[in-house]
């Protein structure tokens, strides 16, 4: 009998749960490596200019210090010398070269790394490094530099877009034009970033990394140090959250590798929480303007969407801020503009729902504003403008059940209790408001390879160089294998997070289950086929697809006597194991035939204190139209986590730079407020749970991004409904409401 919870669609507990609750899960900084030393970074105290003089003598003579690495003494990096840094590092430019020049690009940029025999000694010695600078005038303020915005060269999809007539909204009977501002937000996973680097030989390195892709990290290090890929081994079995920040190799990782070379001992760097803000990326501060116009009966005739996005001055970062506007609603006239604004700050990096989460705040706020202007229900406005097919590429949806999700969410939140008139309901002395918003993200699938190995004892080992930063990749993969092979989950082991394993893509863009899960699915199918071929006459020549695979056994549903266990097949063939390695990818033709997207809808009910303006989310409903849900338990947690992130985005999160100095002033958890337990209400998670016929063998679509996309505007819309005040600049802090 198959255990339903272990199959696709079940709610099995995480395969790594025991390791995580007992403290046995090993994150990068926890590997025991002999002769380990500790690196601590020294930050630049200016924002732009050059290092004139670096005094490292005192630090070098401090107890326990092995070396102070700077641009003056760092080992040569082959790729830097050849001026061809790894393209894989970001795909968007050369990046910043660690300890390579005297140039300062942003405040807090590492100018030195102190390596000592203990963490305490390295920390103390780092305080002794002194620098003199040739300071130049810096620019860190987005608003003051909007005119410097430029078209990104590296991402063609973000060049100016126009469908139909330009700025058609201006001629519509009902129109509005508003600006929406999102501050800088920082990923802040609980695990601090860093790396442990160990040169095993002059041309052979092992690193323990916090990465969303061991293969990506391996490639970048191999390219940077001009090493054969197999000479670079990357371990990253457990990652304590990342949310996008570990989608690239950061300069401080290369710096640690240089330091390990310099001291000829393994070096571990764990950056500080303060440095998590300054040197490891963020969701970029974005100014947006939306113009939207409709007929009096609610048909949207045109929309224009402009975005100006914070960027560093040394490489291009882009994200799909204006993408959703092109296809979410049936609008004949659309134009979008995306500009990056180079500033003297660290580069951004994708953060959960990159681009779309920012864009959705503008688009879905504007939709809400339009609904009030038209005096129609916001859900009704969306239904009236629902696109039967993708209006951007004129393709049918692979699946789109967003209308079902609207209905399910409205029922759950009690939408019928909402008044269409703002500031008209009170409850327990608080203004009450209801809001909703939609989110979407591409349902991607990338090529991936999995190895499935059936052992003589009937256990199954699955291997792929995937990452699991928290969503439960390992659990989903085990379920997929259990379903296809008919082997209990307890007999299946999934190995991931090692660069020596078969190719898997980065864990980004909500594509891991679709990519790696498909490879596992296909590898298991082939394994089944092989077993049938090796079964001799036990199955009486029945075809593989007509047979039943259950309890480690192949049998014919028609003829009960035709059956054989997997272990018996191996035994009869004197095989110690049977192994299949299979690459799997989406058929390109399929990709051209359908528009593949996941959709989310968020509903919230808020209370707003009439005197203090404090907003409390009282109830949230998060819905996903994400095809087949492989594991309801972990998927539900993922949606819940996105909603929590959205509450932070809407109400509290804002990284603030003092532009006089170009320096963050709240780069810690006491001053940058991520949601805590007391901020979070009951979150109900609902799934449409209808298989997508085209995305992948499981029929799943990604969840990680849509979980947050749309949550912040849903809250902003609820706050308007409660108070009559439209806040167009996040976060919605009390000062904006009183």
């Amino acid at each position, binding site marked *: 009998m198959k255990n339903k919870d272990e199959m696709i669609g079940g709610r099995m*507990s*995480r395969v*790594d*749960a*025991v*390791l*995580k*609750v*007992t*403290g*046995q*899960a090993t*994150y990068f*900084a*926890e590997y*025991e490596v002999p002769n380990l030393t500790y690196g601590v970074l020294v930050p630049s105290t200016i924002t732009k200019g050059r290092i004139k003089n670096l005094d490292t003598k*005192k*630090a070098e003579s*401090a*107890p326990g210090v092995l070396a102070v690495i700077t641009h003056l003494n760092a080992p040569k990096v082959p790729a830097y010398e050849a001026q061809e840094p790894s393209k894989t590092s970001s795909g968007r430019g050369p990046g910043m070269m660690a300890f390579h020049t005297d140039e300062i690009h942003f405040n807090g940029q590492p100018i030195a790394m102190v390596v000592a025999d*203990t*963490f*305490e000694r390295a920390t*103390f*010695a780092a*305080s*002794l490094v002194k620098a003199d600078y040739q300071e130049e005038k810096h620019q860190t303020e987005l608003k003051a530099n909007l005119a410097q915005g430029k078209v990104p060269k590296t991402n063609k999809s973000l060049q100016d877009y126009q469908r139909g007539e330009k700025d058609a909204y201006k001629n519509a009977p009902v129109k509005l034009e508003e600006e929406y501002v999102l501050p800088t937000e920082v990923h*802040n*996973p*609980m*695990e*601090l970033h860093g790396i442990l680097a160990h040169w095993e030989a002059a041309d052979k390195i092992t690193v323990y990394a916090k990465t969303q892709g061991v293969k990506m990290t391996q490639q970048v290090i191999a390219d940077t140090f001009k090493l054969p890929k197999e000479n670079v081994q990357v371990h990253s079995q*457990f990652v*304590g*959250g990342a*949310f996008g920040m570990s989608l690239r190799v950061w300069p401080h990782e290369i710096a640690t590798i240089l330091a390990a070379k310099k001291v000829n001992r393994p070096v571990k760097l*764990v950056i*500080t*929480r303060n440095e998590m803000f300054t040197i490891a990326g963020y969701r970029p501060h974005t100014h947006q303007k939306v113009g939207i116009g409709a007929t009096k009966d609610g048909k949207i005739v045109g929309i224009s969407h402009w975005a100006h996005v914070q960027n560093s001055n040394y490489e291009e970062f882009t994200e799909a801020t204006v993408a959703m506007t092109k296809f979410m609603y049936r609008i004949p006239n659309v134009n979008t503009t995306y500009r990056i604004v180079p500033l003297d700050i660290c580069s951004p990096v994708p953060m959960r729902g990159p681009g779309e989460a920012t864009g959705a705040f503008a688009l879905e706020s504007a939709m809400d504003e339009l609904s009030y202007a038209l005096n129609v229900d916001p859900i009704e406005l969306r239904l009236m403008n629902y696109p039967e097919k993708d209006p951007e590429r004129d393709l049918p949806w692979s699946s789109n059940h967003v209308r079902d999700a609207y209905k399910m969410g409205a029922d759950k939140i009690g939408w019928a209790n909402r008044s269409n008139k703002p500031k008209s309901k009170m409850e327990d002395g608080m203004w009450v408001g209801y809001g909703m918003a939609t989110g979407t993200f591409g349902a991607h699938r990338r090529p991936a390879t999995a190895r499935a190995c059936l052992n003589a004892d009937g256990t199954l080992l699955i291997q792929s160089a995937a990452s699991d930063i*928290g969503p*439960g990749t390992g659990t989903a993969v085990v379920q997929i294998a259990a379903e296809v092979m008919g082997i209990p989950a307890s007999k299946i082991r999934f190995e991931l997070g090692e660069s020596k394993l078969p190719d898997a893509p980065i864990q980004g863009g909500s594509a891991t289950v679709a990519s790696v899960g498909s490879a596992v699915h296909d590898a298991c199918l082939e394994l089944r086929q092989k077993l049938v071929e090796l079964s001799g006459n036990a199955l009486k020549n029945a075809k593989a697809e007509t047979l039943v695979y259950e309890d480690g056994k192949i049998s014919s549903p028609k003829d009960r006597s035709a059956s054989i266990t997997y272990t018996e097949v191996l035994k009869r063939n004197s095989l110690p194991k049977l192994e299949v390695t299979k690459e799997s990818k989406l058929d390109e033709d399929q990709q051209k035939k359908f528009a593949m997207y996941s959709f989310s809808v968020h509903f919230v009910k808020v209370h707003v204190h009439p005197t203090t303006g404090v907003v409390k989310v009282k109830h949230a409903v998060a819905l996903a139209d994400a095809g087949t849900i492989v594991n309801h338990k972990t998927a*539900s*947690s*993922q949606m*819940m*986590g*996105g909603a*929590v992130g959205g509450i932070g985005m809407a109400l509290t999160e804002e990284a603030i730079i003092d532009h006089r100095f170009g320096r963050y002033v709240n780069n*810690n*958890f*006491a001053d940058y407020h*991520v*949601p*805590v*337990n*007391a901020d*979070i*209400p*009951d*979150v109900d998670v609902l799934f449409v749970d209808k298989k997508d016929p085209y995305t992948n063998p499981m029929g799943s679509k990604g969840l990680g991004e849509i979980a947050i996309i749309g949550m912040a505007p849903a809250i902003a819309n609820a706050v308007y409904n409660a108070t009559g005040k439209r806040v167009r600049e996040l976060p919605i802090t009390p000062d904006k409401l009183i």
Partner: protein
Amino acid sequence: MKTSKKKVENEARRDFLKQSSVLSALVLSPGKAVKDPEWEEKVAAPFEKVSLKLEINGIKHNLTVEPRTTLLDLLREQLHLTGTKKGCDFGQCGACTVHSDGQRINSCLTLAVTEDGKKITTIEGISKGDDLHPMQEAFIKHDGFQCGYCTPGQIMSGIACIREGHADTEDEIREYMSGNICRCGAYPNIVDAIMEVKKGGQTV
């Protein structure tokens, strides 16, 4: 402190004076003196080997640590008890929560030497062999985590929350668990897990 012109005959006393004058200098002029590595070396030398007795997860340890070493770094870097996590090193996130004589503390804000003679319990010390603690079971059942990094701290805090009598209602749990940040956002599941253990009535 003035330097005495009188010849000091007692060697031990002279050493003491040397050390204490270094200490006084530290207190009086922290800026320059502290940043001078020569001074630092002199100060550190007599202090480097401070002995410390700790009972950790039922095992007695006789340790020598630098006084500036935090309990968190002692656990993680010297004793390889890495279940206790470093999330901020400033007492702002709760990932490093352990029990000291049964009370929850942030081990990152605790200098190891201040715990001399105390009983420390970490996440590694709450299960009995393969038998998980009820709070660990409940976290698995309710999926009170995703990435797992804040989890040991959440579990140690959750146990303390019940012991303190701060787990009678969901709102109370939310309040008393707000020192433990979970960026993956598993809060509602964490509340469910703690509530279940509380209602189960087992001794935690």
